[in-house]
Structures are given as structure tokens and as C-alpha cells.
């Protein structure tokens, strides 16, 4: 019996622009595999956001639209309302989704837009050079929090999955991580489930993916995986926070 592990048809054959060891690439693969597995590549429209993943339209083998910073959920809403029978997803960073785009993502969930959101929480603004994000951990150093984030100055990080589980319009909310092969496999399943929710018309689904930014964190790619495990997971527990229905 032969099994082949190779680039999925959901991805174009192209070098990515990501830094070495940046886990954006892993999540791209998981999304692309989910779309391929569910056989919806040709039926999918993706909304890229502003952040390191803005160029993801160069990688996903589906129709894609670039959204202004934070607005991908509004853009996805526009797309989905024209094509209710297509699969629509956004792919957003934590600066994009949890900071400038807070209103848009909350209201996509509120309206129960039948879209899937892939939310990359890497606790930092990667693209612009490592500034503080709303998800930056207390004590974590960034270029705009040179002494580390100080909760007495700007609070403690937002927990997006927990918050969104409280929005009535959300159907499926989960948090996963990609810091180890085991977790990557679990993340893949979760992302597939989120898309299945959309396929079956349950409304808003979101997967928060704890991800690394070795460049922004000033760590080697492998150190970054460990840092994620040791620091992010305790503050951002993994799991399914809401699931209105048990589907596969």
C-alpha cells in the first residue's frame, strides 16, 4: 500500500514569501487540504487580509480577493450575499481580526454570516515589524512594548475564542495550535469541521490557530514552537468553545 504526502491541489506550486519557519505556511496547507478533501476548491472564494498573509492569494488555488486591513469579514459578507451557495472564508491575522477589524468580525458573527474564519493568532504584528497586538502576552517584548507588555498600561490580551463563543450567531468556535505535528493534525481536522459547518449552512464558524512568528518574536523557528507551547497555550487553552451541532 502506497501513500503519498505531497503538495495538495489546493495550493499553487509557488515559493512563499514567508520567513523561514513561519507557521502561516502550515495553516495554508491545512486550509487547502480541507477544501480539497471536501471537494470544494472550485466553489470557494477566499478573502485575504492585510498582514503577512496578504499574499495568500498567490498560494491558494481558489478565487481570492484582497481585503483592506481588518475588513475581510465585511468583504466576505458582500461576496457571500451575492453567492450564498459558494464557500467563503477569510484568513486573518490577530492585528487584522482582533484589533482594527474588531467590529467587522464581531458583526459577521452577530449576523451569523455563513462563512468560515481562519484566525492566525501569533501574538504580534508580523508584517509591520513586530508591534504589539491585542493578543500579545503580558511581559512579551515587542517593538512598541520594548519593556514587554504591561497590563497596567494596556490591559491583558483578548481571548477571542472565549469571547466569540458568547455571540449567539456563532455556530462553531475552536482554538487549535500548530506547534507540533500532533497539533497540526488536530488543527487540520478542526478546520475541516469549520468548513463543514458552513457547507451545512450553520452560519459563522471560526478557528483560532495559535501560530508562530519567529521573526517578530526574535527566536529561531524551533525555539518559537517551544515558546508558543510554553507561553501561549497556558493563556489560550485549546479546544472547541462552541459547536451548535455535532457534525463531522
Amino acid at each position, binding site marked *: 500500500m502506497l501513500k503519498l504526502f505531497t503538495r495538495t491541489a489546493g495550493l499553487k506550486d509557488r515559493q512563499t*514569501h514567508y*520567513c*523561514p519557519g513561519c507557521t502561516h505556511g502550515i495553516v495554508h496547507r491545512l486550509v487547502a487540504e480541507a477544501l480539497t478533501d471536501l471537494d470544494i476548491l472550485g466553489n470557494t472564494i477566499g478573502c485575504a487580509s492585510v498582514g*503577512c498573509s496578504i499574499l495568500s492569494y498567490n498560494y491558494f488555488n481558489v478565487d481570492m480577493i484582497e481585503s483592506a486591513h481588518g475588513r475581510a469579514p465585511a468583504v466576505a459578507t458582500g461576496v457571500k450575499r451575492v453567492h450564498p451557495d459558494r464557500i467563503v472564508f477569510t484568513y486573518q491575522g490577530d492585528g487584522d481580526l482582533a484589533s482594527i477589524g474588531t467590529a467587522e468580525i464581531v458583526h459577521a458573527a452577530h449576523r451569523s454570516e455563513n462563512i468560515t474564519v481562519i484566525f492566525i493568532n501569533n501574538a504580534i504584528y508580523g*508584517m509591520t515589524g513586530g508591534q504589539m497586538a491585542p493578543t500579545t502576552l503580558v511581559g512579551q517584548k515587542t517593538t512598541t512594548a520594548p519593556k514587554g507588555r504591561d497590563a497596567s498600561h494596556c490591559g491583558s490580551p483578548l481571548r477571542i475564542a472565549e469571547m466569540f463563543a458568547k455571540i449567539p450567531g456563532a455556530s462553531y468556535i475552536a482554538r487549535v495550535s500548530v506547534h507540533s505535528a500532533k497539533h497540526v493534525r488536530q488543527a487540520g481536522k478542526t478546520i475541516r469541521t469549520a468548513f463543514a459547518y458552513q457547507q451545512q449552512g450553520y452560519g459563522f464558524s471560526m478557528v483560532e490557530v495559535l501560530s508562530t512568528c519567529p521573526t517578530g518574536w526574535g527566536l529561531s523557528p524551533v525555539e518559537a514552537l517551544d515558546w508558543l507551547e510554553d507561553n501561549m497555550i497556558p493563556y489560550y487553552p485549546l479546544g472547541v468553545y462552541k459547536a451548535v451541532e455535532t457534525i463531522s
Partner: protein
Amino acid sequence: MKSQKLICAGFGGQGVMSLGQLLAYAGMIEGREVSWLPSYGPEMRGGTAYCCVNIADRPIGSPLISDDADCAIVMNLPSFHKFEPLVVPGGRVLVNSSLIDEQSTRADLHAYYIPANEIAVTCGNVKMANMVMLGAYIKLTGVVSESSVMKAFGKVFTKKTPQLRKQNKAALKHGAASISDQVPLPAAI
């Protein structure tokens, strides 16, 4: 004194930005007008970064050097291809021959081949390859003195242990020495 327009280019980690800053700082210390302009933006790692340095005796107009560089210091192959054409006839190109094994085909340039990485290793730190190139450059042009560069060193770098200082100085000297016996190729125009 003649003004100098230098383009300095290489991979992200090769220190081309600080090479340019040191030179500009040294120029300022010597009372001249200077400017330093970096390429910027989310470069794909493995891409090429560069900076432009102007040193002159009157206020600097455009800090960008588009097609009239007096000299290009190139630390990797893509930089060599991109910037060699921008040097004026009669100008210089300083090539890091540790990483570039092509040679200039322009007959109107003075080309110098400096195995900067290897020389840097002999100075105790491969990261000093940029200083090797700078040493060669100031030796060739005389645009600033080595001591001004060493003064600038204190300003540009936040980390400045005595050991780094020493390695730095050594790299400058070895760089200068590396071209003392070189006949620039092609020999003349």
C-alpha cells in the same frame, strides 16, 4: 573634496545597512553633508537589501542613487547583477568574491574582488565581512578616515564590547590591505 555616491547591497543579514550608516556617520563627523537611504519593506528573506550613501560638500539633493553611483559594494550575486549597471563610467565596483564568483564585464569600471567572508573569519567574526568591504572602500576613495569610522562605530551600534571594537578595526585594516596589491580589473580605461 569630491563627493561620493555609494550603493551598498547584499542579503538581509550581511550588514550592508550598517556599513552605509557607518560611512555616513563618519562623513558627518568630518563635517561633510551626508545622507543614507535604505531600501525598506517586508523583503522576502533571501532577497536583497541595499542602501545609498551620499557624501558631499553641499546639501544633498536626491538621497537616492538611480544611475550615477560612483561606487557599488556588492555582497551577493543578485546585488552584483542589479547594481553594477548603475555605476558611472570610471567608477568602482567592490565585489565580495567569497559569495560571488562572477566577474565584471564592464570595461569602463574599476572592479575589485575581495574575499570578505574569508578575511572576516580571520579577523575572528564572519559577521565582519561588511567592515572588510568598508575598509577597502575608504582606502580606495579616501572619502573618510579610518578613525572617523571607528568614532562612528560608537554611535551606530548599541552593542559595542571592546572585543567587537577590536575585531572591527582589524576587519577595516584587513579590508584596506586586501586591495593594496590589487590592480583593478580591467586595468585601465
